[in-house]
């Protein structure tokens, strides 16, 4: 009788874990499950809109009418469109000049703030103000500052000081308008650069400076051989962010000039909006927006490779 044998040699019955428990013990599945929420969010809120934007660029969709696939027609039209090339030029120019300006002034400000000053933390908080104020508000402030009739600058120079007879026409012709916008962008971008670089500066050990002082270094040498190399890693990442923010800037330009006068200050972002939403040609607007991608990919790759370099990450001497 088999039954008695079994009861004599009792062993702890091996309970098969349910399929569910086994599934959850299986590592690949567990990893998949844990990644799912993040992946879902990325898919729904990043990949889908991006993919939709790219798809739209190849259709003739207008607002309220779904379009048909037209291949590269939008891009062909853009290639022959003077306004588009003007926008490409100004986007690159705007980004380059504004970034240089922001970094020169931001670094200088960071160096100043790194000294021991009275009310140090208070000063640092104040410096952040232009960054904290919503862009549209500061844009409206600049809009008044640059107004053709009611500019405070014109008022001071003409009516108070009497240095000029006529008011400045900041936004009335192409180049003054372009420079005015760049100035506004620099003003707004300095705090971000200054505060992040300041954080970088504070990680530099004071003993390095003491050693350099003992060796009789000049201020310039200390900056060139200690501050700058040690600041490079953070400089690289801040620079990348700044380039991306500046290149995709929209609010300042749209609120101050709407791309005028005669389209001379359109950035790719504002032109894409103008064509897509008020103009109603979603497909064409999307094509312009898509054409920004190569520029942004370049900026991202730059940061990726630059940041992956150990020398940049850890300083020159730490091979």
């Amino acid at each position, binding site marked *: 009788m088999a039954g008695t044998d079994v009861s004599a040699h009792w062993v702890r019955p091996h309970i098969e874990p349910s399929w569910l428990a086994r599934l959850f013990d299986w590592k690949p599945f567990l990893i998949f499950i844990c990644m799912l929420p993040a992946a879902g969010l990325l898919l729904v809120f990043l990949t889908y809109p991006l993919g939709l934007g790219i798809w739209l660029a190849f259709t003739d969709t207008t607002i*309220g009418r779904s379009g048909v696939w037209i291949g590269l027609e939008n891009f062909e039209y853009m290639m022959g469109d003077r306004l588009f090339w003007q926008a490409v030029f100004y986007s690159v120019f705007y980004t380059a000049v504004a970034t240089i300006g922001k970094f020169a002034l931001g670094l200088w400000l960071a160096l100043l703030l790194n000294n021991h000053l009275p009310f140090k933390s208070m000063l640092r908080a104040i410096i952040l103000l232009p960054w904290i104020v919503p862009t549209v508000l500061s844009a409206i402030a600049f809009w008044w500052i640059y107004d053709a009739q009611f500019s405070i600058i014109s008022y001071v120079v003409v009516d108070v000081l009497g240095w000029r007879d006529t008011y400045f026409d900041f936004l*009335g012709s192409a180049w003054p308008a372009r420079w005015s916008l760049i100035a506004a962008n620099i003003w707004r971008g300095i705090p971000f650069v200054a505060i992040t670089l300041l954080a970088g500066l504070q990680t530099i050990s004071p003993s390095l400076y003491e050693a350099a002082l003992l060796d009789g270094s000049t201020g310039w040498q200390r900056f060139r051989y200690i501050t700058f190399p040690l600041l490079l890693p953070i400089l690289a990442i801040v620079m990348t962010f700044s380039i991306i923010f500046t290149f995709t800037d929209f609010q300042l330009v749209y609120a101050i000039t*709407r791309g005028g*006068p005669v389209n001379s200050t359109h950035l790719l972002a504002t032109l894409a909006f103008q064509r897509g939403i008020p103009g*109603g040609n979603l497909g064409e607007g999307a094509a312009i927006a898509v054409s920004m991608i190569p520029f942004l990919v370049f900026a991202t790759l730059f940061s990726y490779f630059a940041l992956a370099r150990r020398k940049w990450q850890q300083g020159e001497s730490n091979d």
Partner: protein
Amino acid sequence: MANIITRRDSLKLIGGAAAASTFAAQAAAQAIPKGDAMAPKMPIEKGASLRILRPARFVEPDEVIFRANTAKFAKEMGIDVRVDFVGWEDIRQQTAVSSNTGAGPDVVLGWAEDPHVYADKVMELSDVAEYLGKKYGGWSFLGEKYGKKVGTNNWIGIPFGGSTGPIAYRKSAVKAAGFDKIPNDLGEFLKLCQALKKANKPAGFALGNAVGDGNGFANWLVWSHGGYLVDEAGKVAINSKETIAALKYLKDLYPSFIPGTLSWGDVSNNRAYAAQEIWLTANGVSLYFAVKKDPATAAIAEDTDHAPMPFGVVGKAPQSSLILNAMVFKHTKFPNAAKAYITYMMEAEQYDPWLTGCLGYWSHTLRAYGKSKVWESDPKLAVYRDGTENQFWSGYKGPISHAAGTVAAEYIMVQMCASVAAGQATPEEAVREAERRTRRYYR
């Protein structure tokens, strides 16, 4: 057409209006001559409710009185009516989405071309339009133009009103320049502007990306020289010797403007006029009322008058009106209620207080309202009274279409003028560029 009637001003107005409201309004409404007409039978559906979509107000009474009229309708008919106000730049997109998804508001008071763009999605409103036309002395030129489907007698929109922007000028300055009124001859008008400039009291017209004022000026310039964007068949016809003549004229005219007009938006000329920086411009009625209501600028208002835009070679005022056009989508579940609502809002008891409260901001489209008290209240308003009788429209001379709206939204005409004024392009180059861009939308 921007305006700066302040909140306080309009509150005073409304306060005044409210105090006298019922009696005065009814008395005024009775002054509107009415023809004999039977309202079409529109039994309101059981359990009906309506959603209305319209552009945001620019003058406060526009919203307040509109809401009050709607509430009155809802109460009398015993149904729910909700009105949503959306920004001027967004309503066209919302109309488009609503028409294509077959959901959303039952009645849309949208922009001029919209019922024509969605002609197969909107209900025919001929019964309402014919009844209103018969009762209130017929429809004005633009009222009919934008109400009827092209080439038919079928009404697909009910134009509620139109906003127009004639010349506003300082009488003293024009007189000092040697003119009694605004000349209709283009050469004389140029002389006037040059004389104003010499007297340091310059004129100013928006040449920046200003939806209302910029397009208004650019259209005037081209139309007054006999040019037009597209021909009757909708073929692009901007590249003509008339347009080039207009741009050459602008090259002479532009130096007489105050500096900075290339960067002007819709509000710039209002501000500059109130600050006595410019002495002649073109604008909606809002400019005049803003200076009239503010005691600090009352003297400016006293010295202000209006005139149609100079006729040029066409013999009539080359200006149009931004039409507020009501449509009912076929997807509404309560077509009778929707039609009854539109009819109700256009009746004298409701329409006249609205017209009066808005100070004629939306010029009426039914001719009998020319007798409204608002037009007698100030003789300087006369030119706005016939705002929707102008014989020009956006995208003149073409059929009413989506493309016309896009050309305005893309500032194609404005930028053609601005590039010549700025000296960036010769008239010939500017016209070719405008032609190239326009062709893309009229294909």
